[in-house]
Structure formats: structure tokens, C-alpha cells
């Protein structure tokens, strides 16, 4: 048995190393995605393009504008004479929000209870200005919302007694609050899902499509041997990709790898096996490489959106959490983040590891049952 598995394994490796395109993809996919996501994804929005309608035209209004620019949250890219004009610009998408400063802004500022000690009656309080926001993007809206309570002491030439917060927050593991620290380990999970499922699901289909299967199944090769031999090279490919992402992540984005090498290796292997068997099951369903590609994408989208890669798992509705639990990637997402960022050991993550193991066994059983050594 093992001589045949080995023969298929070697054959597959040779073919892989000669397929320049695929070989390139194995290395380029993680690199390019890492650059893209590492630099581009940032959940704290900055430099949002906004407009200004300044009816006050005073030194105070200019000071307010400067104070806002100094936060780096917004960039004033245009000025409008009226709210009407500004609304048109929002509709066109030229700006995401507009700050309206009324003609009596200076008076409002100095009458504001925060900056005026004499006037304690808050019933008379008027806001100093108004933000009109394109609310369709929630990230932008919440960034603008944080500006609501922006202190304007310097503008008002006034020092207030700061109110002390009710809670103190201590940030473990990612003190600088960099999104990329969470993204890079998550990217390992997403990229492995993509390449592992895609490669295996098309590996078997390719044999049938190119006519090799017709010869192979008249030889004494057993289906289980064929499957093991065909997916084994991709275990190496998967580990190579994990190594690329984590080491480049550390080098370019200083994402730390706190966990032990063994836990990292163990969890990666478990996940690679689970993804490979998922790909095998797909390959027993698909008839052409195009179909296997479509099925991979069908799995890939929920893997990206529901696994906790983009949005926190805890914030999702229960139904979505159930779907997420069924996907191997969700479990690996938890594991790799825990291991890489929080130095958790594999034993601490037993439940997730167990699920991946069970998924693999179940997948192999289904794939072998479905894979028939006949044509048509």
C-alpha cells in the first residue's frame, strides 16, 4: 500500500514543482494578501474626507477646524456656502460628512456649560455645531460620533476640571491597539482555507478531466491510496504558507509570535488536514475544475465573513454562530490567534482541536464512500 501512496505523492510533487503558475501562486498568494490586508485593513478609520459649512467665519471657527484636523480623524477637503450644497456633495460621494458651524457659533461656544462657569443651566445649552454624516458606512459614523465629545478647551481658552472615567481599561496582548496584530494570524487561517480546499478539490478532478483517471482506475490503486497520495504534498504546501505568513508578518508588521512552535505546528497540521478533507469531499462532487472552483468560493466567503476574521464572532447572531462553528476555519482562527498572540498551548484549546480532528475523520469517511472507482 505505502509504495503506491509514495509513488502518487512523488508524482504529485513533481507535477506541482513543474507547474510554475501553481507553484508561484503558493508563494505569491500569502505574500500579496499579507501586504494587502496588513496595510489596507484598518478598523479605526482615519483621514475621512469631510466638508465644512462655516457661517460664523471667526477666528474661533477656524480654531475648531484646526482642532479637528489635529485629531487626524477627518480631512476638510471642501468648503460649501450652504447646507444644500454640502448635501449634494454627500450624495455624490465626494465627502462622507459635513460640519455645519452656525453664524452664532462663537456665542454658543462661550455660553456652553462646559466652558462657561456662570451659566449652569444646561436647559439653555445649544450645540456648538452639527455633523451631518453619510450613515451608510457604520465605521465612518462611529468615528464621527467619537468627535461629539471632543474637548474644545483650547478654543475657548478655558481649563475644565476633568471628570474621571468610571472604568479603567488595561489592554493585554496588543497594547498599541494595532489592527494588523489581529489580522496576520487570521490571514493564516483564511489563506490556508483558500489554497488547501482549492488545490485538493481540483487535484482529483484534474486527473479525470485530463483523462489520467481512466488509466489509473484500471490499475490496482485503491481509492484511499489515491486520496492520501494526492493530498499529502499539500500538507507541505500548507505548512510552507503558514511559515511565510507568520515570518513575513513578524518582519514587516512586527506581529509577535508568542506561542510555542509545537502548538503552532500541531494546530496548523490539524487545520490543514481538515481543509484538505473538505476539499476531497468537494472533489467527489465536482465534475470539472470550474465546478470545484465555484464550490471552493462557496465555502470561502462564509470562511472569511463568519470565522471572526473580519467581525468579532461574539457580535454575530446565534444562527450565524452555528454556521461558523461548523466551519473548520472558525476553530483554527481561535486557535492560531490564541497561540500566536496569547501564548496559549494546544492543550488549552482542546475543544477546537478535537473538532478539527473529528471533522477530518468524518471527511475522509465521506470522501472514500463517495469516491467510486468507476467512470460516469
Amino acid at each position, binding site marked *: 500500500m505505502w*509504495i*503506491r501512496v*509514495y*509513488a*502518487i505523492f*512523488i*508524482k504529485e510533487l*513533481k*507535477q506541482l514543482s*513543474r*507547474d510554475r503558475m501553481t507553484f508561484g501562486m503558493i508563494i505569491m498568494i500569502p505574500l500579496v494578501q499579507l501586504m494587502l490586508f496588513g496595510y489596507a485593513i484598518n478598523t479605526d478609520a482615519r483621514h475621512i474626507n469631510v466638508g465644512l459649512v462655516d457661517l460664523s467665519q471667526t477666528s474661533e471657527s477656524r480654531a475648531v477646524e484646526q482642532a479637528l484636523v489635529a485629531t487626524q480623524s477627518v480631512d476638510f477637503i471642501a468648503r460649501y456656502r450652504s447646507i444644500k450644497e454640502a448635501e449634494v456633495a454627500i450624495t455624490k460621494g465626494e465627502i462622507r460628512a459635513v460640519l455645519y458651524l452656525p453664524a452664532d457659533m462663537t456665542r454658543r461656544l462661550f455660553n456652553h456649560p462646559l466652558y462657561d462657569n456662570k451659566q449652569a443651566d444646561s436647559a439653555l445649552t445649544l450645540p456648538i455645531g452639527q455633523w451631518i454624516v453619510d450613515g451608510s458606512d457604520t465605521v465612518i459614523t462611529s468615528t464621527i460620533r467619537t468627535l461629539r465629545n471632543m474637548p474644545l478647551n483650547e478654543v475657548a481658552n478655558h481649563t475644565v476640571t476633568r471628570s474621571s472615567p468610571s472604568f479603567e481599561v488595561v489592554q493585554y496582548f496588543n497594547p498599541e491597539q494595532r489592527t494588523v496584530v489581529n489580522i496576520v494570524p487570521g490571514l493564516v487561517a483564511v489563506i490556508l482555507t483558500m489554497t488547501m480546499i482549492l488545490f485538493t478539490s481540483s487535484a482529483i478532478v484534474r486527473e479525470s478531466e*485530463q*483523462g*489520467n*483517471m*481512466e*488509466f*489509473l*482506475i*484500471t*490499475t*490496482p*490503486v*485503491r481509492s484511499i491510496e489515491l486520496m492520501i497520495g494526492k493530498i499529502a504534498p499539500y500538507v507541505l504546501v500548507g505548512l510552507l504558507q503558514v511559515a511565510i505568513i507568520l515570518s513575513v508578518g513578524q518582519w514587516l508588521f512586527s506581529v509577535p509570535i508568542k506561542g510555542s512552535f509545537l502548538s503552532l505546528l500541531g494546530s496548523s497540521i490539524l487545520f490543514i488536514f481538515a481543509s484538505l478533507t473538505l476539499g476531497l469531499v468537494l472533489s467527489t462532487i465536482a465534475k470539472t475544475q470550474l465546478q470545484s472552483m465555484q464550490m471552493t468560493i462557496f465555502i470561502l466567503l462564509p470562511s472569511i465573513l463568519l470565522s471572526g476574521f473580519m467581525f468579532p464572532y461574539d457580535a454575530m447572531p446565534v444562527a450565524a454562530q452555528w454556521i461558523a462553528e461548523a466551519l473548520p476555519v472558525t476553530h483554527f482562527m481561535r486557535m492560531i490567534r490564541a497561540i500566536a498572540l496569547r501564548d496559549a498551548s494546544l492543550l488549552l484549546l482542546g475543544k477546537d482541536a478535537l473538532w478539527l480532528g473529528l471533522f477530518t475523520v468524518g471527511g475522509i469517511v465521506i470522501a472514500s464512500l463517495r469516491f467510486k*472507482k*468507476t*467512470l*460516469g
Partner: protein
Amino acid sequence: MNTSPITEPTEFAIEAKGLSKHFGNKIAVNKLNLTIPKGSIYGFLGPNGCGKSTSIRLLTGLLEASEGNVSILGSPLLGHEESLKKRIGYMTQKFSLYDNLTVQENLSFVGAIYGFAGKRKKNRLEELLALYDLEKQAKQFAGSMSGGQKQRLALACATLHSPELLFLDEPTSAVDPENRREFWERLFDLCATGTTILVSTHYMDEAERCHALAILENGNKRADGSPQALMDAMPATVVEVSGNKLRQLKQTLTQHPEILSAAQIGAHLRVLVKKKVQDPLNFISQLSNGRETVLARPSLEDVFVTCTGDRYVD
């Protein structure tokens, strides 16, 4: 161990009874009966889409039959597919080896699949490379070889484990006549060592080399037997007509119900007349206004024409 006198070896390599295959409503193979003796070369002759490949796939266990029984090398195919796989070889119609592996690597892969290893594998590969004249191409990618070279490689792979029964599906479709002769020399060599060969083709000259053949059309077997027997038993007489304006003559002749076909070959018109016509020479002579007519020896092509097409004779 069996101490009684050696049991009569099964003399048939393939026995099929009522073998059928349906694809939905389409009947690709219809109640095929076959008995192919061991050690012979048996041909499937038929046009495109007549069910040659499907029949071979049924006999190799690659497709499940809709109906019928098959026994291969003495054991029923059903339930013995896996054990029979070590004893049969199959060369597919479409090249089914790996284009991006070299000749050597392809052979080595197939060798490992059949359980060859170490010195034994090395020797066998050298033997095959020499036998099929592939030594110079050993390091060449299979995808970059010529049709004839690919064919030799495919045959080498199919015979690597010295199968007792070899299926060849249109093995010479991409091969020039010279190499076809060579190829057939190899087949006779294999046959001489006791291998039974089933080969499909749509070339008459190849069919003529077989010990026996079956003529297939639309999934039905129209005739079978040795080429000589088929020609002798042909239910038609061959008459050659010479003269001018043969094209018009052909038009008039083919309309006659007693005439199976008329085909122009050089300066003659080759006419197949049903056997029941008493004096075919005279019959044609009258129909063609007294042109010169002679009887000709039937060829396999005549047999083929007689038993296929909408005028075939049962």
C-alpha cells in the same frame, strides 16, 4: 495444493453474454455476446460512436453494465474487479499518462503502482525502454513527444506488469502507416508470449490482421469471426464494372434494391450485389447497358459495407 490433474484451463479470455449499457435513453451497447479465446488478437471494427470504447470500459470493469454477464480470464467480472486489475492492461483511446512527467518518470510511476520496486523495477524499465525504442526519449516530457512515440509509451505502460489480457482502444489513430506496422509487430510479439489482445480500430487493414473480429454498429454486433470466414460468408457478391460515365452509373445502380452499394475505385465501380441474385455478372451487365463486368475477391471493407448502414443484410 491441488494434487488432482491440472484442471482444464479456461480457454476463453473474455466471455460476455447479453452485455448492455444504457446512458439514459441511449443504448450505447446492445446485448453484446463475445467469446474470445486465450492467446488471440481480437478486433472491434466500427465507425465513430458505435460503442467500441464503451464495450471496452464495460469489459475492464470501468463502467458498470446495465445488463449482462461478463467473465474475464475465467472469473466473473462482477466482484473480482480488483483482483483482475493485476491481470489486465488497458491502453486508453486518449493519451492518459502525464504530459508534464518524463518518459522515465511515467514508467517509473506506473511501475510503482503495480508494485515494482528497486532492482526489479529498474530492470523492467530498461527492458521496456529498449523494446519500445524509447531510450533516446527517456528524459523527454511525455507531452512533447510525437503521436507515435506517445503510443509506444502508452503501450509500454499498459504492458509493464505483463498482463494476460490487454485492451487497446484505437491504439494507432495518431500513427503513420510505417509506425503502425511496427506497432503491430509488437502486438504479435506479445501475442506470441500468450497475451490475449482486444483491439478496437476503424482501419480495415488493421482489422484484417486480427485473428477474429466483431463488426459493431450503433451498439450492435453485426457480424463476427475471422476475417477470412467473414469474407467467405459474406451475403453479397462483388462485381467490378469498368467503362466511362461511372458516376451516373453509380446513381442508377444504387437505387436498385438488390444492390447494396456501389463505390468508385480508380477506373472501376465496385458493386455489391445480394447473394440471392443468381447470375450477378449478367444482372449488372444488363443494368449497365452491357459494360464489361468481372467478379472480384471480397475484401473486409466489402464485409463491413454489407453488414452496416441502412441496407445491411442479416
